[in-house]
């Protein structure tokens, strides 16, 4: 299990701070796929770096903590917190970075990249034995074992992504983080990769966190998801609930804006642009684009409200128990 306790993270620039993640609070449970959605620049990749403890200048955690609860071989629960999570990389938590094109060493064979990453954590001393194990694992994932002999450029984009997923899951970590695992891939290949990710998760019964800007991807494979806007997690809940019963106006508009094959209705985008994270506005960060914004929204931060089973949203309209409709505004003015 992975828990984020009111985590804030910022980039320390020469002329100020970019507050990319602001008081994000949620759990990733065991045996589930958790999705993080949001537009570019909303802090979703930064959040993933925080979860993976990949903190280096200029990124720093300014508030809160990350906890990973895992069980070691003897069944003892171990708690890893930010600052020492990187000691358990690959074994307890692993990361599939964005852009499979550029993350592998171009002059090393896939085999050697596996050895590089894994040998330190693996108990098999013999290289041959380890290679046999890797081959077996690749076959389990229906990948041809010949890829081990190939250099990264000899593989197609989809195959490279599969190899990365195989590498990240080889030691059966408790948590697998995947940053935009299917951007820049064609839809047919994308489907294959997503099916593979969800099959791997089902087999290992671990937790998986998938970051994607594509709401369709979340609908297809995640169990629970969170929507980020301007560095904040504005809504968290079961995926079905988010799509069928969204509570935050941003989530509603985002889902409403998705075009669908077979749907002939007129779709509208959301007017305006997200605020700068250098100097985020006071109050609710979505207020400037929100059709229901009230005086209160520009003054005070909305609190997190429970709107359903395991479903939370942060919006002032919800404070009054009114599901993000126009009535909320009317209630206040009266």
């Amino acid at each position, binding site marked *: 299990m992975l828990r984020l306790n009111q985590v804030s993270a910022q980039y320390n620039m020469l002329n100020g701070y970019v507050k990319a993640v602001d008081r994000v609070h949620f759990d990733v449970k065991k045996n589930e796929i958790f999705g993080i959605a949001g537009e570019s620049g909303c802090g979703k990749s930064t959040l993933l770096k925080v979860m993976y403890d990949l903190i280096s200048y200029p990124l720093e955690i300014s508030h809160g903590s990350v906890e990973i609860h895992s069980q070691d071989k003897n069944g003892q629960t171990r708690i890893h917190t930010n600052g020492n999570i990187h000691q358990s990389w690959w074994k307890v938590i692993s990361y599939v970075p964005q852009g499979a094109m550029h993350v592998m060493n171009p002059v090393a064979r896939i085999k050697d990249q596996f050895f590089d990453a894994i040998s330190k954590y693996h108990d098999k001393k013999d290289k041959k034995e380890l290679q046999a194990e890797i081959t077996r694992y690749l076959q389990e994932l229906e990948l041809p074992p010949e890829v081990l002999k190939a250099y990264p450029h000899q593989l197609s984009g989809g195959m490279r992504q599969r190899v990365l997923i195989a590498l990240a899951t080889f030691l059966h970590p408790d948590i697998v983080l995947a940053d935009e695992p299917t951007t820049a891939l064609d839809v*047919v*290949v994308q489907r294959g990769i997503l*099916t593979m990710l969800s099959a791997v998760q089902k087999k290992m019964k671990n937790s998986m966190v998938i970051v994607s800007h594509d709401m*369709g*991807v979340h609908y*297809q494979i995640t169990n629970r998801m969170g929507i980020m806007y301007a560095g904040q997690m504005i809504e968290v809940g079961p995926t079905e609930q988010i799509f069928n019963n969204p509570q935050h106006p941003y989530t509603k508009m985002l889902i409403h804006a998705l075009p*669908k094959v077979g749907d002939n209705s007129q779709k509208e985008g959301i007017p305006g*642009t997200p605020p700068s994270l250098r100097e985020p506005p006071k109050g609710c960060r979505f207020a400037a684009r929100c059709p229901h914004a009230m005086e209160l929204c520009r003054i005070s931060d909305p609190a997190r409200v429970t709107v359903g089973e395991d479903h939370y949203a942060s919006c002032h309209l919800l404070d009054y128990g009114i599901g993000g409709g126009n009535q909320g505004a009317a209630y206040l003015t009266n």
Partner: protein
Amino acid sequence: MRPILQINDVSRTFKLGGMFFGKKIAAVDQVAIELPGDKPQIMSIVGESGSGKTTLAKLILRLLDPSSGNIVLDGVPLSAYGKREKRKEFLKKVQPIFQNPFTSFSARKTVDTYLFETALNLDVAANKKEALAVVTDVLKSVGLEYAHIKGKYPNQFSGGELQRISIARALIPKPSLIVADEPVAMIDASLRMNIVNLFKKLKDEYNVNFIYITHDLSTAYYVSDYIATMYKGNLIEFGHARNILNNPSHPYTELLLDSIPRVGKKWAEDVLQPDFENKQENEAGCKFAGRCPYAKEVCHSVQPYMVHLDAEHKVLCMKHNDYQTGNMAYVHHNKNHSDSKDNSRSISG
């Protein structure tokens, strides 16, 4: 009414490797499309990466010359516009919009200079004052104000705003065709529909046709009148957008539609994935045969041909002609079934 755009059996080959032993690759292979000109249309070209959709766009924009075949725009073949002479006339007719708005503007120039230069160079305006009127006008059409962009550099805008500015620039000469190559790929979901809606609005307002190149079938369905699906350089299906996406006829279009991560309909779990990363190309027969669930032996050995399902809907697949090879067999087949509903089908090429 004559068609606005005719693409007549256009091919473009590229040579790979050595001077003598190089391999030829047909990026665009015998593509024939006719876009009716009775009212402004939006035609989408969809396909995976490497299917030749961008090469086709470059051919229409004359950034490349076809190896064979020709393209006729509004009754005038593109070859009539010379490389240098008549270039201006061509640019007044056809304008591009590119994928990445951050790289299509120079970082060292203010964005309004692009608008003024287009207006002055293409003789839309005789002087700066007239140009200002034109620029203000086109910016208004895309929902921006001149005062907002005056003297600003590209890094001061968001991607959505910059893409609007490049659309405004393309509108200045009031072209009859705008070719947009993945115009919303770099734009966030919340803003994407604003740009796509703009195409719908401008189509009627400026009486301009759009060619919308994309790999996103959902926006293609939303915005377009016609859809052309490409696969490895071939046009494999062409027709009305609603027709094609509600009732895909080529197995590849079917596969594409099935693979969209849709909201509201989950993927079937037990679907057997064909070997979709098979790079081996089938030289003799249909290029899709290796991945096709309906492929029969004949598909691997005989070149497929266009089958017309109705006046506009055509598909490059022998499945729709009972796997008959060649014209003779087809005629024979049709004679026997002259009363059946199949008789609306005919063969081209």
